[in-house]
C-alpha cells in the first residue's frame, strides 16, 4: 500500500478535543523543583563552586606575587577583584546547562506542562547561589592576600555592590549559557558573548567598589549602584522575553 492510500491518509480538518488540557504546574513550583535538582547535582558532583573558588584564590596568589607589593588599594584593588570574580563566574556559566544538554534535561522540561521561564529563574537562582558561595571564599582571600587588612568598615556597602553585580552576572550568565550550550565550541562561545555584555557590570562594580578599598575608605557613589540596578533590570527583562525562543528548536 502506498503513502497516498485514501482510507487512512484522509484526515478531518479539525480534530475534536480528546481530553481536558494537561494540569499546569505553577512557575514557582517548577522553579523550586529545578533549583532543588540543580543544588542536589552540584552538591553531589562539586563541579562548579570548588573550581570557581580555587580559580579565584589562585588568581589572587598570582597577583600577590606578580605585583610584588605588600598591598593594593582603590581602583587597582577593585579592578583585580572584579576581573577575577568575572572570570571565575565564567567557569560556572560554561557548565550551567551541560548536564541538561547531555542528559536530556532540556527535553524533559520541554515535555512538561511548565512555563519555560522557570528554567531561566532556576538557573539564574542557582548561579546566584554559586556566586555567593564563591565570594564567601574569595573576598576574605582577597583581603588577606592583596589588601593587607580586613574588609573593614566598608563591608556592608561592599556587600550591596556585590549583590547587585551578582544579580547581573547570574542573569547574563544564564542567558549566554543557554545560547552557547547547543554550539560545539560552547566553552569558547560562552565567554566571547558574555564578557562584552558584562563590561557595564565590571565598570559599575569596580567604580562602586574602588572607594571602599581605598587607603582612606570612602563611600559608594549612588550612580554606580543605579547603573548596576538598571542593567540588572534591563537584562532581566530581555532574558525573560527571549528565553523561550532560546529553548525552541
Amino acid at each position: 500500500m502506498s503513502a497516498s492510500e485514501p482510507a487512512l491518509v484522509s484526515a478531518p480538518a479539525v480534530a475534536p478535543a480528546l481530553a481536558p488540557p494537561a494540569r499546569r504546574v505553577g512557575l514557582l513550583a517548577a522553579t523550586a523543583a529545578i533549583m532543588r535538582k540543580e543544588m542536589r547535582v552540584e552538591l553531589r558532583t562539586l563541579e562548579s563552586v570548588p573550581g570557581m573558588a580555587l580559580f579565584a584564590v589562585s588568581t589572587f596568589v598570582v597577583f600577590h606575587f606578580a605585583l610584588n607589593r605588600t598591598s593594593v588599594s582603590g581602583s587597582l584593588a577593585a579592578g583585580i577583584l572584579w576581573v577575577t570574580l568575572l572570570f571565575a563566574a565564567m567557569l560556572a556559566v560554561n557548565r550551567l546547562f551541560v548536564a541538561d544538554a547531555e542528559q536530556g534535561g532540556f527535553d524533559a522540561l520541554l515535555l512538561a506542562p511548565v512555563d519555560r521561564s522557570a528554567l531561566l529563574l532556576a538557573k539564574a537562582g542557582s548561579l546566584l547561589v554559586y556566586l555567593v558561595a564563591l565570594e564567601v571564599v574569595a573576598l576574605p582571600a582577597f583581603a588577606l592576600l592583596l589588601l593587607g587588612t580586613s574588609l573593614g568598615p566598608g563591608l556592608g556597602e561592599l556587600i550591596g555592590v556585590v549583590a547587585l553585580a551578582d544579580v547581573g552576572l547570574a542573569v547574563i550568565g544564564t542567558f549566554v549559557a543557554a545560547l552557547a550550550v547547543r554550539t560545539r565550541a560552547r566553552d569558547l562561545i560562552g565567554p566571547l558573548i558574555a564578557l562584552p555584555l558584562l563590561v557595564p557590570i565590571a565598570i559599575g562594580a569596580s567604580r562602586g567598589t574602588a572607594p571602599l578599598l581605598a587607603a582612606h575608605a570612602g563611600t559608594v557613589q549612588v550612580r554606580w549602584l543605579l547603573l548596576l540596578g538598571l542593567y540588572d533590570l534591563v537584562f532581566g527583562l530581555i532574558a525573560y522575553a527571549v528565553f523561550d525562543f532560546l529553548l525552541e528548536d
Partner: protein
Amino acid sequence: MAVQEQAPPALVLEGVVRRYGEREALAGVSLTLRAGQTLAVLGGNGAGKTTLLRLLGTLLRPHAGRLTVLGSRLPAESWAVRGRIGMLSHEPLLYRELTSRENLLFHARLHGVREPRVDEMLAAVGMARRAQEPVKTLSRGMVQRVAIARTLLHEPELLLLDEPRANLDPAAGELVEELIGPGSDPARPRTRVLVSHDPRAGIAEADLVLGLRAGVPVLLAPAAAVDAEQVMELYR
C-alpha cells in the same frame, strides 16, 4: 488489533515536512491515528523515525504541513498537549548523578504528580530496591526500566516509544509489557506511536504501519494488511 473507528483522531498529520538544513528528514507524511490505536513506525537508520517522534512530542517544529496531536494544532498549541505525552527516547532523560527516585521525583514535580506515584512506578518496573542508587551506577537495562517509569509517571494519553524494549532482559520485557503494551490499560487505552527495528514485533502490536525510507513515507497501511517480508524491503 481492533480498529476503533468511532474514536476521535489522536494524531492527524497532513503533508508534514521537517528539514535539517537542506536535507529533508521527513518529506510529506500524512496519516490519521485514532485514540487508543497503535502506529508502528518502521524504517532503517536515518529514515526519519526519531524526527517524527520528536515532532509529535512538540520537541521539533514542522517546516510545512499540518500537525494535530490530541486535538491541538502544533506548534501553536503545544502548551495544551505537554504533560499529556509520555516520551521514551534513546536518551533516558535521567540525570546520572541523581538516584532513580530523585530523578522520578524531579519529573513528578514538573508534572504536578504526587510523591506516592513515584514509589508506585518504581515498584511497577521492579526498581524499588535500587531506587536510592545513582543512575550512573545502574546497568542499561535498569536505566531503561527507570526511563519507562518516568515516561508513565504522569499517566500520559499518548505514548511515543522509541525502541522501548531496548536493553531489557526477557523478564523485564514481560514486566514492561504490562505497562506499555497494547493492552496495558483496557479501561483507558493509550494511543501509541512505536518505533521498532523489529518489523514483525512492531506489526504484531500495531493497528497502522508507517514505513519510512530517507524521510519519505513509502508504506502506510493497516497492520493486518502488511506482510513482514514487504517491510523488510525498507531495510535494504
